[in-house]
């Protein structure tokens, strides 16, 4: 079955407006599925609850900047050494974005629970001394360990309705190769009801089956494959290109104000097609790596 679609068709068909729990893959400034995220913005797809990997970055901040996110489940949204996430920070401080405060252990194990149908996941003793669970009683609660009688922290399973992920390559059936670090992208694919993949290139199945052990996402979990070479830009794509810090700094300086964020969205997202975007950033001097 051929699942290859244009970025516009993939979002239109598989991500309903107001989707319940949408996961975005990648971590920090690496492997963010930005072609899919930008298309969400172009199509004004609202997200009831956005889930990041343990560390979200532009993948979350851009959707928040576009005013499309009602709630966010995350343990970090930021730009690491480049600074805080401007739209996320502004929205939370203004009280217009609800945060479901999470920690790395819960996001990681919660996705495994979602993938495996576990009713909840028990977390290691000691984590309850952080304030995280007190701020998010919807995702965490204190329970009694049935074996020891001790109080331990439990987390609800994380089963995204949709996962938007980047992979290095996939065949038309959705069998996919993740290059470099996998972060929690595989877990998101295993736990999500619908998986939309963007890839650097679509390759013939016989090319993948020669490295089947390294083809770690099976196509039966994937609904759509979008060929988007350069589609992680301005974040990095492991195995392909590095982060474009100059472009990210431009985003950060523009998005420091709500008006500036809108002008970024107009110039780089809503006002251009994805193809035009990638052409323009490749033409510019700021591009990092080998797009």
């Amino acid at each position: 079955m051929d699942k290859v679609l244009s970025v516009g068709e993939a979002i239109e068909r598989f991500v309903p407006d107001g989707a319940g729990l949408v996961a975005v893959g990648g971590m920090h400034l690496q492997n963010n599925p930005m072609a899919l995220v930008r298309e969400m913005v172009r199509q004004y797809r609202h997200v009831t609850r956005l889930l990041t990997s343990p560390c979200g970055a532009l993948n979350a901040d851009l959707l928040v900047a576009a005013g499309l996110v009602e709630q966010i489940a995350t343990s970090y949204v930021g730009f690491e050494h480049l600074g805080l996430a401007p739209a996320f920070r502004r929205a939370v401080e203004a009280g217009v974005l609800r945060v479901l405060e999470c920690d790395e252990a819960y996001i990681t194990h919660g996705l495994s629970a979602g993938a495996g149908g576990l009713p909840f996941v028990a977390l290691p003793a000691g984590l309850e001394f952080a304030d995280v669970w007190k701020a998010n009683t919807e995702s965490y609660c204190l329970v009694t360990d049935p074996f020891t009688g001790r109080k331990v922290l439990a987390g609800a399973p994380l089963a995204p309705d949709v996962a938007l992920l980047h992979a290095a390559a996939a065949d038309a059936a959705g069998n996919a190769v993740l290059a470099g670090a996998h972060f929690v992208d595989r877990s998101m694919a295993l736990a999500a009801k619908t998986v939309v993949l963007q890839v650097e290139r679509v390759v013939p199945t016989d090319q993948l089956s020669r490295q089947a052990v390294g083809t770690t996402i099976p196509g039966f979990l994937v609904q759509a494959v979008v060929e988007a070479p350069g589609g992680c830009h301005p974040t990095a794509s492991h195995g392909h290109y590095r982060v474009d810090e100059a472009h990210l700094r431009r985003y950060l300086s523009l998005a420091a104000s709500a008006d500036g964020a809108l002008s970024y969205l107009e110039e780089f997202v809503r006002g251009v097609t994805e193809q035009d975007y990638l052409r323009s950033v490749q033409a510019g001097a700021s591009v990092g790596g080998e797009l």
Partner: protein
Amino acid sequence: MNGGAATPPSGWATGELMAVELARQLRNDDVAVMGTASAIPQVACGLARATHSPDLWFVAGGACGVNPHLAPTVASCCDEELLRSDTVLPLGDVVLLEGRGDVFTVFFAGGLQIDAYGNCNLVAVGDWARPALRGPGTVGLPFLSRVGRVLIYSLSHNPRTFVERVDFLGGPGFLDGPGSWVEAGLPGGGPAAVVTPLCTMDFDQATLRMRLRSVHPGVDVAQVVEATGFELVMPDQVTQTAAPTSEELAVVRRLDSSGVLKGR
């Protein structure tokens, strides 16, 4: 970043001195783990391995390279360069081992706020529900409760960062002090040292509050006191942090060939 030392008194950058000073806290039998924005602790571990602790292991969380080869050092903990390592673990495995509790002996931590008991906060300043400053989030800091020694580092040393009590407890240190610490019975050993651009601190064994240990070259005690938003425990004698040796600096600069630590 605000609150660094004034001009470095001689030929090294603040980040380089901090890496050298953190390396001195490490031991040959350590297995260290670190996360977001951890170029300084990565270089510290690389320096320790190249000098006094050749058998130390370190995991650069995010990309999860084990003993990443550095040279160059990179600013992002998820950068592909960190996969040039002895081995690479999936992130999920590192999270499992952090939970296991008897594998990692050192966890490098930091925060927007760090308090007198070594509790860390990367989540929010002010009321969590409507914060004055929303930080990025806590990532793996709740695991501080389970690790042997917590080494805290901060590029900011000012009264906004070093506060009496964190507004949001994201990474447990000694909680509210000796009573609460004993009652909690946490599996980890708690915070061991704090390195900033101004000084190195440890914790007073009786009160579990942060104590000044040494001031860095060119810094005086009054500067540290003024930059700290709580009353530091003062030892009988405050020493001066030993300046980086030429051997230490040579290793740091070989590992950080692109000057990430100098850029801070």
